[in-house]
């Protein structure tokens, strides 16, 4: 655990990517294979199965520290992380340990097979031989969420440095449904690729946001424009008679969208498509709200399949006849895609996301203005001679989103954030006027600068009217411009509406509370766009 803790400390102490990569590469060169495998797993969002509950952890830690449980609970929002709160509150360890990361992970995994009282004993014993950092990491193994400023991309680069392998092919190897139980470091990273998991997706190519007009992109003839659909990005894989669907977050979502199984009936084996999963009314996408009803469900009831059927709007062909097409220009991939999807029957669960013809940027800008009517968020611009790259790369793919909808609202509740935002008020509830009442309609967490969060935090502390656990009701004094991407009818909310991706666009210091928008204003937006 010491090596892993040292790695963590180095990563945590710097904000420089080069130093992080260097530290990770050194670790991947020196550590034991089992530790390396687990490190890769942890930094790519995989963790051992949770054998004890966080409630148990809290109780045991409070008991061991000799403080009442409520005091630990009160400390938690101030520290902002449960694993850290526990690590800090425990008395200093009586001993030290040289056992490796994999030992502690195996200890945790073995816990599910021992009686409850023994579980407590083993956790307490572990705490008593780990220093504060090691303890924090040990707790993190249980509570999950290893967010320490190491992206998968950065880890892959370090791994490439340490192994001398190509970064893109490593990124591909790390995709898919492996866990440290189903593979070894050798099989995952070093072995010949022949036995590669047939379900393995390609890393998604992600677009950058275009903040300006596209004039700087040069000749419109070099570019393809498509609608930027408001759905779920998905990769459909047809190999060896099976189909698999991956989300952009590398989650296997095959079973959530059973309609797409029929893709096998229309497309040959050895095909991989990139596209957007949307709910479809037969001629056009339905609202994102409809898709929302499908997202959380692992199994889908018949009625929902009928009310909110999905299709894949395909916009790229990554593999054809088992051949990786990612190196060929978009122009060619597109031609193959169109050919492949031509003449599909109307009830096929996939369609091409057709390019939008345009001759100059101005006419395209006019088209973009109609995005909401098309139930799109804006446009995608893709360079016609671009290969399909991995991850977010600047230059060839741009998302040119519509300007968000906005409304001026009053802050009425505030809550402290987590992690880096611990001890700062960053999570707010906003309201609009209905007569003389303020009706809450959304929460928002992002959009302010650190300086603004510090200012509003000081203000919240002095202007709290009432506390409800961690939530504080504050004096209705501040108006914020709330930006959002969409608005839906929602009977679950008091205001009757739900917003998509709300955030704080501006702190309206200039606007008195009385001049904030009303519920009628919000409903007018609903009528216009939903």
């Amino acid at each position, binding site marked *: 655990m010491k090596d892993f803790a040292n790695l963590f400390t180095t990563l*945590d*102490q*710097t*904000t420089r990517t080069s130093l992080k990569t260097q530290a990770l590469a050194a670790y991947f060169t020196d550590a034991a294979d089992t530790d390396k495998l687990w490190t890769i797993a942890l930094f790519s969002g995989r963790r051992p199965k949770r054998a004890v509950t966080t409630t148990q952890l809290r109780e045991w830690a409070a008991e061991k*520290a000799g*403080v*009442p449980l*409520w*005091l*630990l609970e*009160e*400390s938690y929002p*101030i*520290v*902002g*992380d449960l694993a*850290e*709160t526990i690590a*800090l*509150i425990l008395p200093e360890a009586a001993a030290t340990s040289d056992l490796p990361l994999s030992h502690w992970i195996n200890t945790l995994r073995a816990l599910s097979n021992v009686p409850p009282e023994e579980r407590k004993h083993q956790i307490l014993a572990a705490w008593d031989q780990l220093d504060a950092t090691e303890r*924090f990491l040990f707790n993190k193994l249980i509570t999950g969420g290893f967010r320490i400023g190491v992206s998968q991309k950065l880890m892959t680069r370090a791994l490439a440095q340490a192994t001398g392998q190509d970064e893109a092919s490593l990124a591909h190897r790390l995709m898919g449904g492996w866990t440290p139980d189903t593979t070894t470091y050798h099989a995952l990273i070093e072995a010949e690729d022949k036995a590669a998991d047939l379900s393995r997706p390609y890393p998604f190519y992600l677009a950058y946001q275009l903040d300006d007009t596209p004039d700087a992109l040069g000749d419109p003839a070099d570019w393809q424009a498509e609608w930027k659909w408001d759905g779920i990005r998905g990769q459909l894989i047809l190999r060896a008679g099976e189909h698999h669907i991956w989300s952009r977050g590398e989650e296997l979502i095959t079973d959530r969208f059973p309609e797409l199984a029929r893709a096998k009936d229309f497309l040959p084996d050895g095909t991989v498509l990139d596209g957007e999963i949307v709910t479809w009314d037969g001629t056009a996408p339905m609202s994102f709200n409809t898709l929302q009803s499908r997202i959380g469900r692992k199994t889908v009831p018949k009625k929902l399949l009928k009310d909110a059927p999905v299709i894949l709007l395909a916009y790229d062909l990554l593999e054809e006849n088992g051949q990786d097409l990612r190196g060929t220009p978009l122009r060619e991939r597109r031609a193959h895609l169109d050919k492949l999807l031509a003449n599909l029957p109307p009830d096929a669960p996939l369609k091409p996301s057709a390019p939008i013809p345009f001759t100059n940027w101005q006419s395209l800008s006019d088209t973009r203005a109609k995005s909401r009517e098309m139930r799109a968020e804006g446009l995608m611009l893709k360079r016609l001679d671009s290969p399909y790259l991995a991850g977010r790369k600047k230059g060839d793919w741009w998302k040119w989103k519509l300007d968000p909808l906005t409304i001026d609202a009053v802050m009425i509740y505030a809550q402290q954030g*987590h*992690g*880096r*935002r*611990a*001890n*700062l008020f960053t999570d707010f509830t906003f309201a609009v006027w209905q007569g003389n009442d303020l009706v809450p309609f959304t929460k928002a967490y992002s959009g302010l600068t*650190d300086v603004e969060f*510090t200012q509003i*935090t*000081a203000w919240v*502390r*002095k*202007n*709290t009217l009432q506390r409800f656990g961690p939530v504080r009701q504050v004096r209705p004094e501040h108006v914020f411009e709330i930006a959002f991407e969409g608005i839906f009818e929602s009977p679950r909310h008091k205001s009757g509406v739900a917003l998509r991706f709300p955030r704080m666009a501006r702190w309206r210091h200039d606007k008195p509370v009385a001049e904030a928008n009303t519920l009628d204003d919000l409903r007018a937006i609903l009528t216009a766009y939903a």
Partner: protein
Amino acid sequence: MRAPVLTFTDRGIFCPAGGFHIDPWRPVDRALITHGHADHARPGHGHYLATQQAAPVIRHRLGNIVIDTIRYGETLRIGDAAVSFHPAGHIPGSAQIRVAVAGEVWVVSGDYKVAPDGLSEPFEPLPCHSFITECTFGLPVFKWPDQAKVARDLNAWWAGNAAAGKTALLGAYSLGKAQRLMKMLNTDIGPLLTHGAVEATNAVLRAQGYTLPDTQQVTPDLRIKDHPGALVIAPPAALGTPWARKLGASSTGFASGWMRLRGVRRRRAADRGFVLSDHADWDGLLSAIRTTGAENIYATHGYTDIFARALTEMGWNAQVVPTQFGGDEDSAEEAAA
């Protein structure tokens, strides 16, 4: 029933028997000041009283004020109250203020820490009936590492930067923390440079007889190239400004009790956080409270609600002092603590 020895008003802590306030936040006629930090020594009072050691800095900060001084341990009668100042161990010259009226003793802690820091007059436990205690770090997650260990980490960080040809830039409050750090640093590693705000305080303290290592102020004509391997101490607000960028390739460090929390460390975006506070940690607060033998504890400055509730459960008669800060620590103090 007799009036309490001390009461809590919208101007701050007040002694009816003596007609004076302690660390008031609005202008009053007569103010007893525990120490020179801005949230305790405010401008605009008619008369000030502070320790001999604290007065020069207060004068330096507040300009033309009427200030009397008192020796540590000396008793002064003000009206019907007997008043004395005793070391609080927070910064040089800092005091707890003891007020006795007709045999009943109250102590106002001001800011304090229990462990000696090698610079400030060490904390003196004072038996009393009622103790008004700060609790900036009044949560069990706050426990300070040994100062000697922090000194080793600091010097290793400095030496590493010096070896890499980088300037080490250390953010610390200019009164107290900065000078404490100077005494912890090993000046064999390289030259010690200071921001003007720190150097001005150094000059005041040196003139009083506090021994500090040699320092040189970073003036507009100073060329950092002429001072290889330097460590620069500056107030937190100077970090990330054009002034700091002039120091060239530098590694930034930050010394504060808040560095105990990873979230705050990350928010500060300093390269290194050193856990070093001039306030008592959880164990320090509890041991100080225990040694006073006081029955009544008043919690102020910090997580007062939580701290008072914990003390109540431990058997004290504990209450929260209402302050203008609404009970929580205020973010300006985050830098100072």
